């Protein structure tokens, strides 16, 4: 493997092939009367072909490594933030909007650029109550209440 375009194109190749393969489960129909599987099959096949084109185009190009994409980056930031958002989604209906949101914003304010606890608490409280007021009270979005009843 030489460079990142080739690495990514291989992944797209696999995705394309999988889409085309599983489309056959649905009726493909014929070119004159396409079934529900027809266009998904075509799009998957097109993805696979285009991924191959990208791969081949890159053969004469210069090498690089996966690591180069994350050079001089705080690479941990992304998994940490993503994980916190997933946990937020999972806990949302159990904890309720207010508690869950408070915990998330406090965590995010503290973890990236460690602010003082005072600022973290103030920021998280403000963000939670502010968004609750705007979205729940004003725009009437139905936000989950959770086990504490709010």
């Amino acid at each position, binding site marked *: 493997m030489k460079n990142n375009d080739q690495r990514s194109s291989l992944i797209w190749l696999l995705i394309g092939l999988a889409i085309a393969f599983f489309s056959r489960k649905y009726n493909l129909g014929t070119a*004159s009367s*396409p079934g529900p599987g027809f266009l998904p099959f075509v799009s998957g096949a097109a993805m696979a072909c285009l991924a191959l084109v990208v791969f081949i185009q890159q053969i004469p190009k210069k090498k690089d490594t996966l690591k180069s994409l994350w050079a001089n980056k705080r690479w941990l930031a992304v998994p940490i933030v993503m994980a916190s958002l997933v946990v937020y989604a999972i806990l949302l209906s159990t904890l309720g909007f207010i508690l869950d949101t408070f915990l*998330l914003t406090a965590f995010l304010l503290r973890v990236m650029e460690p602010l003082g606890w005072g600022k973290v608490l103030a920021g998280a409280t403000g963000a939670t109550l502010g968004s609750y007021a705007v979205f729940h009270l004003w725009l009437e979005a139905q936000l989950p209440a959770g086990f504490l009843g709010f």
Partner: protein
Amino acid sequence: MDIVANVMLGFQVALQPANLFFCFMGVLIGTLVGVLPGLGPVAAMSLLLPTTFHLSPVSAVIMLSGIYYGAMYGGSTTSILVNIPGEAASVITCLDGYQMARKGRAGAALGIAAFGSFIAGTLSILGLMLLAPMLADVALKFGPPEYFSLMLLGLVIVTFLAGSSMPKALLMAAFGLFLGLIGMDIMTATPRFTFDIYFLMDGVGLVPVVMGLFGISEVLLNLESKLEREVFETKIKGLLPNRQDWRDSAWPIARGSVIGFFLGILPGGGAVISSFVSYGVEKKLSADPEKFGTGVIAGVAGPEAANNAAAGGAFIPLLTLGIPANAVMAMLLGALTIYGMQPGPMLIKEHPDLFWGVVTSMYIGNIMLLVLNLPLIGVWVKILKIPYEYLFPLILLFCLIGAFSLNNSVGEIGLMLFFGGVGYLMKKFDYEAAPLVLAMVLGPMMENALRQSLIMANGSAAIFVTRPISLAVVVLVLALLILPMLPWVKKKREVIAEIVE
């Protein structure tokens, strides 16, 4: 004159207090997201879409449009003062705008950007008023085969104009097409690729995908690369450009407006590309092109006019054909469908209050923007100085609430986070999200048009090349696919790609 009566109707609609309010909210939010880096108009519109469900469709579209052209204004502020474009269409403004600011002429640069945008916005609205009804009349003659070919053309143009690699952009379009097809097949009621997940039956929602690809992923990228922003510390004075400035910018603004309007009609990144083209044209026509990049006012006026004019032009394909020209218009299409309106040639006739109301509101919005951006520039500068550590939890929180309130379902949040991760990796590996979003919206429409065409022709695909309009479009599609392989075109595209980078 018909048009006078229509414009009067439009103003009647747009001047209703509620609509004035939503127009103001739209341009205000638009300016805000334009100023804030890492949150563009597409993400902002998808965020606010769920909140518009209980508005009247006209008010909702007025507000969503305001966000779009408001962002074009706001984006220039950060380009000039911080050398960071608030959104892609103001990248080129950094070149001369920031240099002007460093020479103490920030005021004039901001002023000409605002006035240029205002003039161009106004001109393109006039163009929209004149051209859209005419085009809609022509489009009435189109049948499913023409629509299918046109949508194909739209997708190919988007990928042709996409940054560097056309195969990569086409790959994204194919993936988007697939995503658009997930869910219940309308003709046979077969659930496709739903994995027995209930909320996928209705298809993959556009809003969570867009929020993930344009909102979450952008925040992730900003977080890992520790955004350093230094607002240029200078007293902003003299927002009114002087007489010499006007002499130097009058023609660039006029040319930028025309370039922007017509490039805006084309599918794909109209605003971005037109600003680059305008800059190139001004440099070429200038008596001393070597001065460009050192703070020439024409280098601010032209591109800023162009990106605003393009914002107007981009409405034409949506309002006349029902085919969105870019990701923002795809969002509007989604919105209109939710409100039960079918964008297309009949839209202007069936909902004149919507079309003329929205168009005239854009005019009013442009005046509001002038007021928001010139006297209140100090407020935006203050917002620019808010550290990102405080901002990003809020942006993420808005995305979470926005996704959840679509259907009161955690599933939509999951979908958004998934596409946030996908979008992050796509940006890392240099794949564009715009063709994906456009293809996703067009997917079901294309499938319908394809099937209807084949039914019309008793199953013969020849129908796409035997009808003259469709044939012409198909030839254009093939030309666009083959052109990039020709050596001299390839070279030109590489040069352009380098400039864009």
